[in-house]
């Protein structure tokens, strides 16, 4: 995440210590990344495993409806796995349309009878309370998130969980100031909000969705992603612990059809979806003509543009962070590197050098940079697209690194000689795969950057301020990071242009999506 800092250079090689008994017992199948590097390498780190026991994962989880844990109508369960070990973590309820109906009934009642009638300052206090509890239980959240999603513990600890708590904190303060959010208009809540979130930032996406919805006076029915339900279910416990009135937040796990059942229910007045463009389109079409409000945060294929006058070491860090943060499973990932031709050779060389120092492996190790891919299905998607890159004539490069023998891991991958027509330059890979394209002039960079159906984010690396402003203005992207990348904050709006969706999350703009004004 720290794209402005040069790479951390360890003082000297540290010999790998024998894994502790705890680690060995907890995750016997994961070979630590340190072992992948020669012991003489300055990059060899001793293992620094986080304790799995902090997660307190229960063997089975029900649905969270009307403040209580309920069994699904079907009685069926699905298993959620640890992507780093392929071991089962817990059984989770397989909800269906009837469960969605029960959750919406609870949310509707809670909206009419409790949440919309509550003094706004009291609503605010509940949100502050939730934020505090998340901070207090942050380590438990971080460990659970990493076990369930495969993302490095460093990221869940330093990014996902603190940002999620910060979102609740930020929107808590809006709850009793809504009249300042839409001056001159009377803001009202929509009612019941249906929310469907993806697996790449399970808790953070939950916070982005639930915090502004509750602050605006709505109640929610949220469906977490099928492969990453655990932090959402832990959040349900937080709601209970905060004494949040029953039905204000309902969290139901289940397949995509259940998500569609939530979205299309006539009692759901607003739908918010984060995920792929194809599913977003299906949802938009499913609710067509129903008069619902809709926001969509969809895919991306961001260009990270490096101009010849950029501070190259910083730019290398930014490009690395842009594509390998969360294994590249990020909708705003800087998956297309646009580098100016005059520095391309040198830049690629520095990039490769930096890629060889990435520590790929056990997500629970505090030194790990690149963790596990979330699911087998996603592994296959990445593999298929990488194969297309090779078949279409791009040049593939991967650093020497030994991946753990079990779990779903993918080597950091760099493509050079990529044409704009290649699938790896057009389609969202959602993996640690960077496609490099060169350019000569500023105009060419802008044209190539905008040559995509997506428009979520972009990066600009140059020391020239006027160029930053000029290029930023011309990029068709909702978030432009200049001399930085993958930065997020509750006060800053986030969302896309074009087929990356519409509506914003974060900031005042993110709040207005959950208000209707008359």
């Amino acid at each position, binding site marked *: 995440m720290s794209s402005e800092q040069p790479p951390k250079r360890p003082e000297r090689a540290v010999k790998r210590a024998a894994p502790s008994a705890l680690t060995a017992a907890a995750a016997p199948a994961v070979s630590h990344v340190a072992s992948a590097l020669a012991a003489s390498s300055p990059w060899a780190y001793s293992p620094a495993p986080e304790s799995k026991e902090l997660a307190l994962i229960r063997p089975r989880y029900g649905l969270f409806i009307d403040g209580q844990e309920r069994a699904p109508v079907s009685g069926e369960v699905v298993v959620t796995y640890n992507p780093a070990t392929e071991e089962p973590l817990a059984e989770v309820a397989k909800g269906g349309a009837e469960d969605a109906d029960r959750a919406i009934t609870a949310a509707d009642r809670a909206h009419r009878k409790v949440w919309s009638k509550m003094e706004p300052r009291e609503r605010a206090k509940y949100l502050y309370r939730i934020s505090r509890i998340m901070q207090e239980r942050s380590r438990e959240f971080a460990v659970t998130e990493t076990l369930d999603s495969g993302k490095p513990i460093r990221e869940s600890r330093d990014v996902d969980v603190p940002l999620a708590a910060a979102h609740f904190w930020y929107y808590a303060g809006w709850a009793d100031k809504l009249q300042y959010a839409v001056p001159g208009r009377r803001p009202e809540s929509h009612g019941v909000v249906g929310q469907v979130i993806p697996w790449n930032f399970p808790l953070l996406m939950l916070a982005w969705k639930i915090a502004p919805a509750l602050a605006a006076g709505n109640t929610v029915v949220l469906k977490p992603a099928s492969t990453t339900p655990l932090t959402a279910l832990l959040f349900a416990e937080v709601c209970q612990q905060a004494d949040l009135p029953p039905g204000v937040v309902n969290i139901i796990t289940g397949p995509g059809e259940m998500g569609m059942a939530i979205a299309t229910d006539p009692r759901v007045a607003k739908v918010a979806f984060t995920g792929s463009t194809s599913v977003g389109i299906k949802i938009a079409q499913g609710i067509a003509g129903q008069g619902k409000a809709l926001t969509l945060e969809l895919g991306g294929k961001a260009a990270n543009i490096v101009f010849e006058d950029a501070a190259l070491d910083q730019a290398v860090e930014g490009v690395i962070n842009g594509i390998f943060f969360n294994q590249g499973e990020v909708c705003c990932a800087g998956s297309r590197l646009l580098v100016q031709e005059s520095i391309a050779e040198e830049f690629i060389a520095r990039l490769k050098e930096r890629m060889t120092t990435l520590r790929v492996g056990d997500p629970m190790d505090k030194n790990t940079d690149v963790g596990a891919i979330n699911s087998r299905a996603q592994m296959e998607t990445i593999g298929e697209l990488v194969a297309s890159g090779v078949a279409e004539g791009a040049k593939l490069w991967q650093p020497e690194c030994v991946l753990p023998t079990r779990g779903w891991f993918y080597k950091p991958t760099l493509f050079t000689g990529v044409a704009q027509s290649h699938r790896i330059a057009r389609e969202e890979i959602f993996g640690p795969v960077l496609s490099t394209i060169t350019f000569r002039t500023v105009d060419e960079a802008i044209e190539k950057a905008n040559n995509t159906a997506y428009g979520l984010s972009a990066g600009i690396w140059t020391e020239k301020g006027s160029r930053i402003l000029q290029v930023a203005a011309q990029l068709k992207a*909702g978030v432009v990071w200049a001399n930085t990348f993958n930065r997020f904050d509750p006060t800053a709006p986030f969302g896309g242009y074009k087929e990356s969706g519409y509506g914003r999350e974060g*900031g005042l703009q993110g709040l207005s999506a959950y208000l209707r004004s008359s």
Partner: protein
Amino acid sequence: MGKKSGKKGAGKGESPLITAVTATDGARLEIRRTPKLYIGGAFPRSESGRTDVLQLARGGSANVARASRKDLREAVKAARSAAPGWAARNASLRGQILYRVAELMEGRAAQFRDDLIAHGYGKSEATEEVAASIDRLVWFAGWPDKIPAVLGGTSPVASSHFVFTIPEPTGVVAIVAPESSPLLGLVTRLAGVLAGGNVAILLASEGAPLPAVTLAETLAVSDVPGGVVNILTGRRSELMPHLTRHADIDGVDLWGCPDDLLADAERGAAEHVARVARRQHDEKDRASAFQGERGERIDGMTAFLEMKTVWHPIGS
């Protein structure tokens, strides 16, 4: 639409402003206007050669161009090529250009009034509607240079970055103009789109298209560049499936979309993630929606603004 037709329609005793004038009494023969399309700053007939006969409230009829799918495509082409130039004009200038349109409307007030009367409005009602439409345009003329302050802003992020958010135009917006409010509603929806820096393809009220035709003639002599506004007359049921699905249309304002076409229109827009503005669920396509302060609504402007958030580190 013919909102008032049959009721106040042919008011007895009032001097009819539009009549089927004949030369039998030796009076001068009126030169009638051919209602045409407005595409890329020019006034073509429909390439299809089709017209619809529109019966006027006080007698007589007009042959209104019935735009085809190909006319729509031409309009999109014209709009797309005009989009960068319009978006690049500075905000104050965009406001002045809109104000200039209001000036020109004032000069053509009589014709707008006659159009409304031809569609069944009473004289005083038509006069008020024209005045309100001009005032509405002036209201919107003040918006362009205030949008960033009202809708954008800076974010006090926790890290050491300067972060600002600016609204930018979405691009090409198709407007299904209100059926019930053929001038005031049309001006309200169109002005919002233009104030935001977008370009427009406007599908005029099907039952009352003449004010849109006159607006086209007004725009043609204004400082609004050709292609920034393109106005089509024709049948909604025929054009809307193509209009919502055209991949080079970035947004659709469905405020005037009939209820029975709405679901398909939204499905079409969803195919390419086009932005959609529409009436609130419980709101009907009624002229009152645009009257008075209630009509000063910016939902047709904000729906087609994209928030761009730019981050930069702070440091020495």
